[in-house]
Every structure is written in structure tokens, then in C-alpha cells.
């Protein structure tokens, strides 16, 4: 690059307690350039963004804007230096009208309205209360507000995620125009198609470190995926599967769970898949692709806005988690704190579902409870030294309690949302065999995991969800990390054989 970079970050380090979120991150943006910031879940993207925008401070490292040291202590200060972010979540205050929001952020109205029109929102009234506006409009307003302040560097985080196609086109056009004015854009997105049409370069983060920058062009996608994954990944044969091999396909059998055209809210648009008895089915998706909604619908927390759920061939509707539990669907949520009574004992936490129904509200048979709970504790090898209060247990043991509860209560279909997030490796290695064991005893397990290697360790097959839809169904045997990563980014798999053995997605359509 001949010109001096507009923004330059190097050697950025940030740790949260014992966790090193960024070890050596760098990023360089030249005037008039669009740079994609890429990285798998947990690579440190959001930490770097927060540092650039002044939300948190780095432990070490240098950030320069236009050659000058960029030391910001608050997001407001970052705006003044010319770096304006547009976040994934709308940032207008819902209870105020649009005009009041503009006054709050000192945004000039004329340019704002000009940008709103440019971006394709017609007939916006400034006295409209923000909470009545649809999500897509809110995101456009956020962008227009950012543009109206004429930023040197615009940071767009998943800008197109909630937008319909026509608005996406407008956004991309406006971003290109910015570059012609010698302004720069940092573009964070999971959509490769947008990145290849928009970005000049892509900077890739992995494990808190900038591992390289790629000129975007034909074939660069493969290189980016490779860089996000790191060293060539172990092939399926090298990974020791916890138990046996995939089950033989029993196509004639009615599936335990069949989901058809399921939709919910704006995130989950059309998901269909089947899960057999005795199967561990993985769900692979980037953050926010609809997997949260899928699990909440299957667990009875949310009602779907469309589609069908069939259990053993019968249509079911859940109005409450209790309905789902009655149908054998039990849920281990992503956040352990959502499932546990932190001040109560291990025993009470495990026994909680026993007493949910009114005819079980009476006397507790303490001996029977003790033996049922004891058996579950034994099976999961929960460390019971601090069993008086669950909050004194380690994260891994807490997670085991949330699973043990359903083993004690009885389980047909276990819905596990990222059960190994943030727990120690030893516990992880105990959880995979447990899931396999449950499956071998005839239960079904739906496992969403943010760690791709877990798919081959624990699953028989994996469905890949992108943008609220199932984009691929992959046999565990073929589900190495590059394949999954490509699929998760919505890239059609180059090698067709990854798709060949499974025709499930097609079969799921109503006949």
C-alpha cells in the first residue's frame, strides 16, 4: 500500500481474567478500502471490535487513526475520532421518536434523511416512535445515522443480517460509494457472497491472533476458510470416535422427530429434518442463524410461526415446556444459569422435574428420591464435595447436573444446546460418550455445538443451518471441520460426495 493507512492496529492484547481473548491482533485499513474482518466463533472478532470502538480497553497494543494515536475511553470518543460502528442490535432508543433519537446523538437531520432515502426507506416520519418500526428499518436508520456523521471509518457488524434482498443491494451500493470518497469500511459478515462482491481484502482472526490478510478475489474463499481453521485439520480417520460407528440407516422406520418447514420469528425461516431413535444429530451453524429459535421451539418455550413438528409420526404442538417434556423432549439450554437453582442443592436440582405436576406436589419419598438422584450422579460422575449449593460447583459439574436431571427423570429426546461451551476438557470428554451411550439405549440427541470438531466426536449426522434454513445434511464420516465450516458459511460444497450419502433434506418434504 502506497498511501498511509487510515486505521492501523497492531499487537492488540486483551485478557479477561485467565482467558486470553486476543493475543496478537492487528488490522490495517487503507483509505477507500473495504476490509472484511473474519474469524470463527470465539476467534476474538467481537473483542477487537469492542476495543476499536472504545467499549473496552486493550491490555497492550497500538491503534492509530490517520497516523495519530487512537486512545479512546468511550464509544462517544471513538465517534469523534472518525470511527463509527453500526452494531448487529438496533441502537435507537425504542421509547423515543426518531427525531429525539437524532437529537440525542447530535445527528444532523438533513443528511440523515438524504441517506434514509438513498438506502431505500420511503416515507419515514421523524415523529414516528421507534418501537413501531420494523427491524429492517431500524437497521437502515442506524446506518443512515452513522453515514450522516461522515465517518472516516465505518464499522458494519452483520449489517445485512435482518434485511430483505432489495435493501441489501442498496446497502452494498452505499458502502461502495463511501469508498469512492476515500472513506473506509470494516465489514463483518458471515456471507461470503457479499464479501467477495464488496471487499478488497479480508483479515482473518484465529484464537485471538491475526493470522493473515487475503486479497479478495476468485478462489479466496477457500483460503479464508483454511486460515480460519488453522493447520490442516485431522481427517475423520484420525479422530477417535467415542464409540462405534454410525448406525446403519433404517429408512423404513418412522423417525423419532420430524421437523417440516419450521419457522419462528425473523431468524428461523424454513427448517426441515428428521432424527431417528438412537441417533445423535448435530446442528451446525454460525452464531444467530436461527439455531436458538429452533431449540426453543422444539423445547416448547416458543410457539413456531409456521411448520410442523412430528414425533413418532404424530403431529404435536407445544404450548409450554411441560408439553414438550410430556412428549419426551427435554432441554439442556446454552446458559447453565437458566436451568439451575444456584442456591439449592445438587439433589434438589436433579429432582426438580419429579414434582412439576400437581399430583406430585405431595409428600416426597426421600428414600426413592435419594436413590434416583444418586444413580444419576453416579452415572455422570458428578463431584459431590460441594453439593449443598450448586453455585459452588465448577462449570463442568453444573453442566452435568443439568443433564443428570433428565437422565433421572427419563429422556426420549435430549435437546442439548452447546453443552460443552466454557467447560473443561475433561468434562467435555465425559459428555460425548454419555450422549453416545444415551443414543445407544434408544434415546435421540439433538446437539447444537459451536465447536466443529465435536460433530465427528459425538454425532451420527449433522444438519447445517444458515440464515434460518437447512443448507446441508452431512454424514459424520464426511463432517471434517473444513467441510462443516464451508457449509456453515453457506458455501455450496465443492466436492459433491459430502452431500451424496444423505438424501434426508429431500425426503423430508411432504408426500
Amino acid at each position, binding site marked *: 500500500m502506497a498511501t498511509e493507512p487510515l486505521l492501523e492496529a497492531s499487537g492488540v492484547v486483551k485478557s479477561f481474567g485467565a482467558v486470553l481473548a486476543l493475543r496478537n491482533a492487528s488490522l490495517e485499513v487503507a483509505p477507500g478500502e473495504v476490509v472484511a474482518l473474519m474469524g470463527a466463533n470465539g476467534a476474538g472478532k467481537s473483542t477487537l471490535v469492542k476495543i476499536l470502538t472504545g467499549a473496552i480497553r486493550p491490555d497492550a497494543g497500538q491503534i492509530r487513526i490517520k497516523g495519530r494515536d487512537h486512545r479512546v475511553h468511550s464509544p462517544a470518543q471513538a465517534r469523534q475520532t472518525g470511527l463509527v460502528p453500526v452494531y448487529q442490535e438496533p441502537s435507537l432508543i425504542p421509547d423515543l421518536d426518531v427525531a429525539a433519537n437524532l437529537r440525542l446523538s447530535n445527528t444532523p437531520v438533513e443528511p440523515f434523511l438524504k441517506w434514509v432515502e438513498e438506502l431505500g426507506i420511503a416515507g419515514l416520519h421523524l415523529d414516528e416512535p421507534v418501537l413501531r418500526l420494523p427491524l429492517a428499518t431500524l437497521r437502515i436508520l442506524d446506518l443512515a445515522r452513522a453515514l450522516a456523521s461522515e465517518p472516516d471509518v465505518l464499522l458494519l457488524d452483520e449489517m445485512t443480517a435482518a434485511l430483505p434482498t432489495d435493501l441489501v443491494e442498496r446497502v452494498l451500493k452505499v458502502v461502495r460509494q463511501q469508498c469512492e470518497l476515500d472513506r473506509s469500511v470494516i465489514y463483518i459478515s458471515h456471507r461470503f457472497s457479499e464479501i467477495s462482491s464488496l471487499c478488497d481484502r479480508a483479515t482473518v482472526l484465529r484464537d485471538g491472533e491475526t493470522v493473515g490478510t487475503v486479497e479478495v478475489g476468485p478462489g479466496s474463499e477457500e483460503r479464508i476458510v483454511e486460515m480460519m481453521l488453522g493447520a490442516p485439520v485431522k481427517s475423520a480417520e484420525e479422530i477417535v470416535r467415542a464409540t462405534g460407528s454410525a448406525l446403519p440407516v433404517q429408512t423404513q422406520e418412522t423417525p423419532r422427530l420430524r421437523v417440516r418447514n419450521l419457522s419462528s420469528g425473523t431468524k428461523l425461516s424454513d427448517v426441515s429434518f428428521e432424527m431417528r431413535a438412537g441417533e445423535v444429530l448435530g446442528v451446525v451453524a454460525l452464531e444467530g442463524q436461527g439455531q436458538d429459535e429452533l431449540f426453543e421451539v422444539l423445547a416448547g418455550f416458543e410457539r413456531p410461526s409456521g411448520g410442523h413438528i412430528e414425533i413418532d409420526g404424530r403431529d404435536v404442538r407445544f404450548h409450554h415446556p411441560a408439553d414438550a417434556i410430556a412428549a419426551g423432549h427435554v432441554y439442556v439450554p446454552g446458559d447453565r444459569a437458566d436451568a439451575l*437453582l*444456584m442456591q439449592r442443592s445438587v439433589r434438589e436440582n436433579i429432582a426438580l422435574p419429579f414434582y412439576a405436576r400437581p399430583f406430585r406436589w405431595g409428600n416426597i419419598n426421600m428414600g426413592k428420591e435419594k436413590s434416583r438422584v444418586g444413580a444419576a450422579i453416579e452415572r455422570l460422575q458428578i463431584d459431590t464435595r460441594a453439593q449443598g449449593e450448586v453455585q459452588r460447583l465448577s462449570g463442568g459439574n453444573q453442566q452435568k447436573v443439568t443433564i443428570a436431571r433428565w437422565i433421572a427423570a427419563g429422556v426420549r429426546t435430549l435437546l442439548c444446546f452447546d453443552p460443552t461451551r466454557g467447560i473443561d476438557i475433561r468434562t467435555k470428554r465425559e459428555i460425548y460418550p454419555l450422549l453416545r451411550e444415551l443414543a445407544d439405549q434408544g434415546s435421540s440427541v439433538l446437539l447444537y455445538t459451536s465447536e466443529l470438531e465435536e460433530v465427528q466426536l459425538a454425532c451420527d449426522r449433522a444438519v447445517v443451518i444458515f440464515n434460518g434454513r437447512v443448507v446441508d445434511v452431512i454424514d459424520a464420516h464426511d463432517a471434517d471441520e473444513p467441510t462443516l465450516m464451508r457449509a456453515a458459511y453457506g458455501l455450496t460444497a465443492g466436492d459433491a460426495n459430502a452431500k451424496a450419502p444423505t438424501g434426508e433434506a429431500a425426503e423430508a418434504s411432504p408426500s
Partner: protein
Amino acid sequence: MTMPAQDDLSIAKRIRRFLRDHPLVPLVVLLIALVVILELMRPGIFNERWIGNTIKFAIPLAMLAACQTLTMLTGGIDLSVGIAATISAFVVATQVAILGTPGAIAVSLIPAILIGIANGIGVGLFRVHPLIMTLGTGLIGTGCLQVYQRTVIATGSSVPDILAWLGTGRTFGAPNSLLVFVPMAALIIYALRRTGFGRLLYALGENEDAARLAGVRSWQVILALYALSGLIAGITGLIYVGLIKAPSLSLAVPLLLPSVAAAVIGGTSIFGGRGTYSGTIVGALILTVLTTMLTVLQMPEGSRRILFGLIILAVTAVYVRITEDS
């Protein structure tokens, strides 16, 4: 208990842990200290008669405080119990001449339970905040009682003998109201520890999402809870009218705020999930002894109330401090 790591703990930490595991101990110590102070202030006051009287007056308070303890465990509160108790008392006194004692007692409990059911529907199904819901039903109950009073103005009132016997009588020196209170208290303590319903109260108060995830339909629990609270309030009203012997339109209302205080002093968290009924009983005794003490001091009413309020605040603050995790 084997705690190998305990050797390294300082004495202060050990005391703290002991207090946390046995939250009733400091309360009992405080109660004994208050009685000792009272005996020093007025030597000879501590005798069988005084103990009997203290228990007699503490029982209606402890019973209303049971309603607060149970509802607070779920993060709620029941501000309608004062008027629910009053309605039961008033109805039984005015109906006994018409329906006879058993009939009047049965009829008098109905409005109290109805108030409880209304609370349960509002809080459990329509998700109205318990404070607002029970305040509202309490006011409605007050209005209904005034209307009812006009229809029975000619009837006159009398307290049934059995209630007077229960409220004021003694057997071998022990107040007869213990005959109602002891089984009720035992039942509540047992229910909280050893029944599914008790477990669910703690679960709802600590983490309603977790309870929901475990398949608990919270409205069912809440409805049963507030109906139970209404029933206990009604029974309290019957005992209390036997003690006071003069039914009025605001008989048990002055007990409402002390009942909340008794539960809080007894270690029940108003945020839910924590508390025991045994603590509440000691809390009710502490409040009753305090009242006696302030009366003995012969202070003017105003300063007495100020002191009462300050003592409640101080006791609660210290107690929460020493029993909570640091």
C-alpha cells in the same frame, strides 16, 4: 461433616459459615437477649403468665407472617391478608347467631379463600405484580366488608365460645391457641422441606425460568399458594377475634405490616428463594417482645414507633449481612 480445609479458615470465617448454615441461631440469641434486657428493666416480669401472654399475642402475628413467608419464597407478597383475616372474623361474629358455630366458621372462611384465589389468578395467570394485585384485592375486600356490614347492622355480633376459648383460654398454663398453631406450623415446616409443593415454591422464587424448563406450570403453583395464603389468613382472623373479642372493620389490619416484618426479620428474602417458617416464628416472637419492651419504657407513642422502625431496620440489615455469602 468432614471439612478437611477447615483448618486454614480463620475463626471469623468459621463463625460466618456456621451462621450461614444455621441461620436460626442468631435469631434465637437475639430473642433471648431481648428477654434478658426486659427482665433487667422490669425485674420479675419474666414469669409463666408473661410467657403465656407473649405467645398468645405472637401466634396471630406468626400465622399472618406464614402467608408472607410462603408468598415471599416465590418472590411475591400478600398484602390482602390483613383484610382477609378481618372479613373472616367479622363474618363469623355476625353469622354465629344465624348459622350456629360450625356453619358460621365454615362460611366465614369462604371470602378469605376467594380473595386468595383472586390473587392467585391475577398473579399467576395475568402476571400482575403481587404487590399491586394483593393491594387491589385488599381494597376491594375492605369495600365489600363495609357493604356487608350494612346488611347485618341489625343482627349484632358475638364471638363464638369455642373461638374465645381458643383465643384467650389456657390449659395447664399454655395458651389454647397452640392447639391450632402447633399443628399448622408443623405442617408448613414439613411442607416446605418434604413436599413437592414446598420445593416448587423455592424453585419459582429463585429461578422461574429453570422451573419452567423443568416442566413446572407456574400459574398452578401460584394459584394454589395464594388460595392457601387466604385460608391461613381466614383462620388467623378466627383466632384473633377470639383473642380481641371485639370484631371491627379493621380488626387484623394493624397486623399486616408487622407480619411482613416478622418474615423479613426471620430471614425470608423478599426477592424469593430463601427463607424458613421456623425463622419467621422466631421473628414474630422478637417483634412481640420488642413491643412489650417499648411499652414498658413508657415512651410517648411517636418515639416508640420511631424506635420500633429503627430496630427492625437494624436487625434486618445485620442479619442479612451475617448470614449471606460474602
